[in-house]
């Protein structure tokens, strides 16, 4: 046999009988370590911002200011959570920002007394929360109907829904703000639990639930499977349609709840509530490592994303940057933060 190189047996990978090949102890932990790292990709950026914030203004790290940041982001962070679920399942829901405004808007419309404001006063205040959530469910059902049942393109459907729902809010409110909300509507947004605003508790609890849901339940895993390869998920016996229905409805309900919290904090529902929020929501999710192509990202990552955005805002405010330059600076910081995080956390080109 010509030019046979007798390779020494212990090369690159261990040869041998099938059962002995594989699992070398040395490489074993590379995978999960990397995955966890990616989850923490924004943490360095958050720390840098925190340090900068503290240098800019000594109040930054005080409890008051941190609570301020958390409370301000609590409502929109529910949208981020909702969008994360939908994105992981490989879809997107633009209409969340409209549900965020419409759901409490409808509740206010039917519960606010006819004389004050321009409510109808049809139902007593106790109905406000059920109505809010029902509107959320309804929006989710319509989305799911178009997307899952009729198989239409999710981007277009939810874009259309965004316009319709926003238009409905403008329509029922006549462009005006609802106020004199029933106390059931203002409770969540204004109560303190253990000295900390209830909305912060709700936000943190829901995010914790989200972490558990996506990371430690079969349902969460099926979202990743559907987002990663829907055919494989089907072939693995996952009821993909049902999972998508549940996800889309849950997302809308979360959006409705977030809207309720904002309505409570502001003791009113503006006709434009939620307008433009979807941009921030996508930014937070994507910065936090959630892929627009589905199957990738974690709830914790999304949380760091929205936290980072609001911390940047807060620091810029504390720094007293001239208003007209805030925008440019904000963008530049986001780009830099991303640069740092993603370069340390690995490429994310997709």
């Amino acid at each position, binding site marked *: 046999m010509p030019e046979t190189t007798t390779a020494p047996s212990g090369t690159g990978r261990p040869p041998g009988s*099938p059962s002995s090949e594989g699992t070398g102890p040395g490489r074993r932990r590379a995978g999960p370590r990397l995955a966890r790292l990616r989850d923490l990709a924004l943490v360095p950026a958050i720390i840098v911002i925190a340090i900068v914030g503290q240098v800019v203004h000594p109040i930054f790290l005080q409890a008051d200011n941190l609570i301020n940041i958390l409370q301000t982001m609590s409502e929109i962070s529910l949208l981020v959570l909702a969008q994360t679920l939908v994105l992981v399942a490989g879809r997107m829901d633009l209409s969340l920002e409209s549900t965020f405004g419409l759901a409490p808007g409808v509740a206010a419309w039917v519960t606010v007394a006819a004389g004050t404001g321009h409510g109808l006063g049809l139902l007593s205040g106790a109905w406000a929360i059920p109505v809010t959530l029902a509107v959320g469910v309804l929006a989710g059902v319509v989305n799911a109907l178009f997307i899952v049942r009729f198989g239409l393109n999710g981007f277009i459907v939810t874009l259309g829904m965004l316009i319709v729902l926003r238009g409905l809010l403008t329509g029922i409110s006549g462009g005006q703000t609802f106020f004199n909300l029933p106390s059931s509507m203002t409770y969540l947004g204004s109560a303190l639990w253990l000295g900390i605003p209830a909305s912060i508790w709700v936000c943190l609890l829901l995010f914790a639930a989200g972490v558990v849901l996506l990371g430690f339940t079969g349902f969460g*895993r*099926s979202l990743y499977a559907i987002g990663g390869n829907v055919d494989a*998920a089907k072939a693995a016996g996952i009821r993909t349609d049902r999972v998508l229905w549940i996800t889309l409805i849950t997302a809308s309900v979360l959006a409705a709840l977030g809207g309720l919290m904002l309505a409570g904090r502001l003791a009113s529902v503006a006709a434009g509530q939620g307008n433009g929020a979807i941009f921030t929501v996508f930014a937070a999710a994507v910065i936090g490592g959630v892929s627009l192509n589905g199957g990738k990202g974690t709830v914790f990552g999304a949380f760091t994303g929205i936290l980072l955005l609001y911390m940047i805002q807060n620091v810029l405010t504390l720094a007293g940057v001239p208003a007209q330059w805030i925008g440019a600076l904000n963008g530049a910081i986001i780009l830099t933060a991303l640069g740092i995080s993603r370069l340390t956390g690995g490429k994310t080109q997709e």
Partner: protein
Amino acid sequence: MGDHAGATAKPAPARDGEPAPADGPVAEAERVTKRYGETVALDGAHITIMPGRTHALVGRNGAGKSTLVSILTGLQPPDEGEIRFAGAPAPRLADRDAWRERVACVYQKSTIIPELTVAENLYLNRHKRNRLGLVDWKSVWRKASELLETWSVDVDVRRPARELGVEQRQFVEIARALSFGARFIILDEPTAQLDGAAISRLFERMRAMREQGVTFLFISHHLQEIYEICDTVTVFRDARHILTAPVAEVPQGDLVGAMTGEAAGLRERRIRPAVPSEAPVVLDAKGLGDGELYHDVDLRVRAGEIVGLAGLGGSGKTELAEAVVGLRAPRSGTVEVAGSRPRPGSVPASLTMGVGFVPRDRHHQGLVPLMSIADNTTLTIPERLGPAGFVSGRRKDRLAREMIDNLAIKTPGPELPVTGLSGGNQQKVVMARALANGPRLLVLITPTAGVDVRSKEFLLGKVEEIAGTGTGIVIASDELDDLRLCDRVLVMFHGRAVAELPAGWHDHEMVAAMEGVDLDA
């Protein structure tokens, strides 16, 4: 050949019938090393390809063959080492045109762009232009049809490529690579998706081109093909070059030995004991039919029995098998698994009845690429991972480790994303998923596609072992190796079950049956 080489046709001097050339190698790779993170894909490997030869490259899954191909075709640079074409150093990586003059390739991974038409896939980046420099679609279409006609592939070239079957796609890839007019062509597992006649056609064409002095580097896991078409063989093992020799001088046993690093060749298979006739029936399908795909098929499998489902592409065997497992609903007939009827067309229903299956295409229906091995293998058994819908990571990893050990999946650990595995090992993951729920009925559709000889032997051994535990097994395949271990084989032709062959058939009988030829007539 030059007729369909398009605008870029190189002058192809037909060096009439002198395949033994005197000049130096067309391509050489020397001391090439390539690493992916911690994985060493190539470790100081070398290969020398002499002109006019058809050079085989063999090795087990993950031996580094495809990596060498991507380096030889300029898709990625080697970490160390050198590539030379006809003695001259390789062109810069950015200079794609220079690479394409030197080498054409059918990659293992599909390079078909699904949204583009077949014609455009054939002539991508070398469209026929008219006088204005614009693409002349008419002539692109015409030339594409002509090109495919020479391969007897009958498709409308204006259809999007995504509508093609796997086999037709493969032909588009082959036809494209061979139409460049390059003097050196690499084929990375071109036959994995083709049936016998198609392979013969490919080989015929390769022989004709070799007469004209074209050099081939040919990769396949089917060693018979190596003996049939190649004159030199190189074996890679564990990222290294092991041997290069004329094919005639290496008997198959030695070849397998070189690939696996073991002295022993392939094992002789034992004769399976007959399945007792009182064994319970695990699958009883009656009168299954689905339009033109298949009609009126009965299929009955007893516990411990292995039943083959043979047939060519388009015979309906795959669709039938998919109906059995609930991937598609049959239009007529009933499927009964161990006495109860799962809802037709429902995979979850089938799974709860104890059906496990390996789908036809692991990339399509088998794997969720971003998820870990552990997640993929346990995807069908969420209820076993923890209480009340929760998933315990530890339990998941333990189950996955068991399966990794059981199927000898070569991986650093259960957390690795499946994309990090070689093809054969990915196939094992799909198999693991099928076995995860301890199935009473196991349906395997082309279970060994793209898997190396040793792994194939191992996987099939597993199948036998599982049958031994009382599981009924259906293997839908056109690979004779897969069918050989079946107790009986149901042969389908144009949607009908035309024959049933008991174990011990001869290859020509099986082939004839699949072809629809009745030898007894």
